[in-house]
């Protein structure tokens, strides 16, 4: 009672409307001088990718490459204005956006029709690695890009039965040369794969429900995952490549569609099925804000390099927030 009254949560800085279907993926691009004016990509249920200018807050272009099937993952490549979009038409398209172009440069045929989002690991300017859900329901396939050669297929041992992979994250420890892959599975476990040895280093059960999204802080080697259940789990990776659960955080309503840590690793945001975006302090996991703006499930959240937060929701709106920013 003695504490001063907490301030009311802020309103979004602005709202982008006009996708005309649920927003499944958002991704920031640019913002630095070299890359021109900051953009936001959004992928919608109707298969369109909208490119928004954050200056004019209007769509700059619309990419239609997935034949009306929902787009559920967007990622830009570090080497310039190239966008990867994954759709449920079993295509992963690489778009060339340089100099106002918007053409499909390349596409990868996927063999899994699930909702699993892919992941990339850029090794150099030209070579990068791509992890996509594989042909069998519990497989993950690693591709060498841009040559599209299959490096390997990661299949769990026969008796593990973790179910489908739900989310993927390729990363490489700073001193170590070997690429690693984190996979969140349908049975609520998170596994760490060593790609070169094609074996699971460690696997922990974090949730009772399928893991819907996670994010990993490679500096602190700590990650956080959200599931269809009522809790967030924070886990860490020790020097022996073993995962362990640090603690879980109980939520008011079940269902987390996406989790994202801000690039400065101060705060994280979750996209809730309960229409709310939740903000936590990353180190302490102290709840900081509950943003109730959307009127339907929030499907995705993303942070820009400068800290701006975007959230796409089933209510066809994208809300842009500016929270706990250094001024």
């Amino acid at each position, binding site marked *: 009672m003695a504490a001063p*009254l*907490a*301030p*009311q*949560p*802020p309103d979004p800085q602005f709202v982008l409307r006009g996708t005309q279907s649920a927003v499944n993926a958002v991704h920031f691009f640019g913002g630095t001088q070299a890359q021109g004016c900051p953009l936001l990509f959004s992928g919608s249920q109707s298969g369109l990718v909208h490119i928004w200018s954050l200056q004019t807050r209007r769509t700059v272009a619309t990419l239609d490459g997935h034949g009306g099937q929902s787009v559920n993952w967007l990622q830009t490549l570090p080497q310039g204005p190239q966008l990867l979009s994954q759709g449920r038409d079993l295509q992963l398209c690489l778009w060339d956006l340089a100099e106002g172009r918007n053409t499909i440069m390349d596409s990868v045929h996927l063999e899994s029709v699930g909702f699993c989002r892919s992941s990339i690991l850029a090794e150099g300017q030209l070579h990068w690695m791509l992890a996509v859900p594989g042909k069998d329901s519990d497989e993950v396939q690693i591709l060498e890009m841009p040559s599209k050669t299959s490096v390997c297929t990661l299949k769990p041992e026969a008796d593990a039965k973790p179910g489908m992979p739900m989310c993927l994250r390729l990363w490489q420890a700073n001193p170590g040369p070997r690429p690693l892959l984190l996979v969140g599975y349908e049975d609520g476990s998170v596994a760490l794969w060593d790609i070169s040895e094609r074996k699971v280093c460690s696997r922990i059960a974090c949730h009772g429900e399928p893991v819907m999204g996670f994010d990993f802080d490679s500096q602190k080697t700590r990650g956080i995952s959200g599931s269809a259940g009522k809790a967030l789990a*924070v886990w860490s990776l020790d020097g022996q490549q073993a995962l362990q659960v*640090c*603690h879980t*955080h109980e939520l*008011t*309503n079940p269902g987390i569609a996406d989790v994202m840590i801000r690039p400065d690793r*101060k*705060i994280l945001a979750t996209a809730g099925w*309960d*229409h*709310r975006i939740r903000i936590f*302090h990353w*180190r*302490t*996991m*102290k*709840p*900081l*804000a*509950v943003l*109730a703006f959307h009127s339907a499930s929030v499907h995705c959240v993303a942070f820009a390099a400068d800290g701006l937060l975007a959230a796409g929701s089933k209510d066809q709106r994208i809300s842009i927030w500016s929270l*706990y920013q250094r001024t």
Partner: protein
Amino acid sequence: MEPARSAVGLSIREAVHVLQSSEDGGRVLSALESLQRYLRGTAEPALPGEQEEFAAKHFAVVLRCLVGRLSPRWLQLSPGDRLEQLWDSFFLEGPADQAFLVLMEAIEGTAGPSFRLMKMAQLLARFLSEGRVAALMEEQCRPQMKPGFPLLQETLLSKVVSLPDHLGNHLQQDNLAQFFPQNYFPLLGEEAVQVLQSVVDSLRGGLHCSVSFVSRVLGKVCIQGRHKEILGRLVPQLTARTQGSCLWQRVCWRLVEQVPDRAMEAVLTGLVEATPGPEVLSRLLGNLVLKNKKAQFVMTRKLLFMQYRCTTPMLQSLLGYLAMDSQRRPFLIQALKELLETWGSSSAVRHTPLAQQRYVSMAVLICLAHLGEPELRDSREGEQVVRAHPRPRHVRTPQDACLVLPELLASMMAGVKCRLDSSLPAVRRLGMIVAEVISTRIHPEGPPLRFQYEDDELSREMLALATPRPVGDSPLEARSSSLDPVVAETPAETMEGSVPPAQLQGSDSELDSDDDFIPYDMSGDKELKSSKAPQYVRDCMEALTTFEDKDMERWEAALKALEGLVRRNPEATREVSVELARVLLHLEERTCVAGFEELRQRALVAVTVTDPAQVAEHLTSQFYALNYSLRQRMDILDVLTLAAQELSRPGRLGRSPQHSSVGPSTQCSPTLTASQSGSVMVPDWRVVVENRIRSKTRHFSKGSPWQEPAGGPNEFASVAGCFFFPLIHHFDRPLVTFDLLGDDQLVLGRLTHTLGALMYLAVNTTVAVRMGKALLEFVWALRFHVDTYVRRGLLSAVSSVLLSVPAERLLEDLPDELLETRSWLADVAEKDVDENCRELAVRALLLLERLRDRLLSLPS
């Protein structure tokens, strides 16, 4: 001695003769100087015997002669101001009492503004400033043998005390600042301290002294209502001097004891007010209450029971004083018993003003705080409390001063019962607070009694009073034990450094200086309801009537959606309106829905507004039906009022159908037992406020600042009768479960308010005249009701009649009723115990007055 005396007399007579007749400066001077020898403290004094004789017999004559000769010319008879100095010295150095009396007499005898008057006034001012009043009073404190002394003292007393009045009367505009009461009485207070000091000194020297004159001065000043001025100076001085000096204390006790009986009350009240706390009061008064009957009466009865003007600190001083000494303690217990008796009497609850009830309650709480644990324990065991304190047998104390548990409990229960029965929230709250405190004192170990009332300033103040002065150990212990884990936690945290962050959220975030993010308000983070709200009114009804626990979410969603559905689908609603109203009326809170009462009420209002005639008929018939709770009956009244209000709002149809303007907070959804402050009477307040605005606002025909809303038919006009008459017809027929004129006076109060509101809302309708007639008859039948809340309702109903019924119809159709009402109103305005009632009556009288003015202005 005989020849000497005659010699003194002879020489004085000679000098006086010279003074009277001579115009020669030199002779006058020498005569004066010869007289001056007889004054004390001169260079070559006369023999002491001669001085005494002069003072006793001749001094007054000389002074009168001097006064008689005073004129500008006379003073200039000799060069320089030697003559004037001599003249002054007689008044300032001679015996103070005579000089004072002669001066006062001369001032009173001198007419109009003149040199003499001013000279004398200035001399008197000097007399005051040189501390001669102290000398005067000191003189009176010595043992006196002279005949006629009491008379002289009486005269002196009245002159000393009434000096500001006399001088004010005589000097008029020319009055000197020293004689203003605000200056004079503080001075008198300081002089009294001087006198007491010299009394103390002479007592130390073994001389006998009496302070009775000072006491009488003090008493008289206090009777005149100047206790603030005189005690303001006296009390701090006495406080300081009595500290550590027994002699001073005894002089002080004596001072108060000697105050005449008729002045005792004024002095004691002043003292209680002026002293900073019980300790000081106890030091100044001693065991006065044991020695002086009058003082005992004032302290233990009059200040507590017959008046209620003491402030809380005064009460604390007073009761603390009674509690401080073991001999006085029985009085405290006696007082508590009587206070509790008063507190528990239902007639007192009904017939005394709220302020007095509050006063008595506070006194009870303070008494309880002073009663120590042993006394309470004794009383718990049924023993006499007084036994705990051994005291001399001869002291007069109330012999039956014991407080036994059953007694305490009984009066508490009686008081709480009749307070909780009251329809005034403030009275109910008083009952709750006192009951909580008493019960914690009776059963400190048991589970505490807790009522639901909102904290406000008063309740906090009262609870603070109830905490005993010597800090009880239980709260302290509780606090320290709650502190302990925190203390223990801190080192553990610092040792562990990098443990998982969840356990040290608190301290971690504090260490976190560089990213100290302040969390936003997260109170809105509630569980999301998954079930779909019904889309049709009939579905809602069905959902509300299911009794399966599985469907609770659907039930809640239906309740929340109902109002909007009803307003969007008036046709569908009309088909089921009565049934829906019945369902809603019987609806019980089955889950903890936030704002259940409000949701239900708004839905009911929406239904009533949609189909007013049918639903109002149903509701009014149910109001007098069997088997309803009081809560439901009051809900009916509230709903009718709100619906009538909405119907009568102009331009209702044009606007979008929303109800939000009648905000949730202004709606009346109180529960019977809880004590929301005044929310019981909210709709009626609105009427009162509107009445006030109406009566204070003048509307000019042109240039009104606000846009006239679009005109439209008043929908309430056609159904006002359906709302009003069924309610008013059956109030005097008791049912088995419902007796408006008996125990259920709370509902009667609500009914009167509702009727008043309906009457007010029926302004400009044709049925208003008939309604007014019926309502005035209703008011007439209930005009002497004992319940304040009912009377308030009646008074506001009268105001509504006066506002709503056209003036000419009122005068033509209801002249007798008006006259009767008028006399009743005048009576209430004068005599009612409740302030609010008096105010309402005055307001209604003003409305009547306005009516008459309009009538008088009609012919012209």
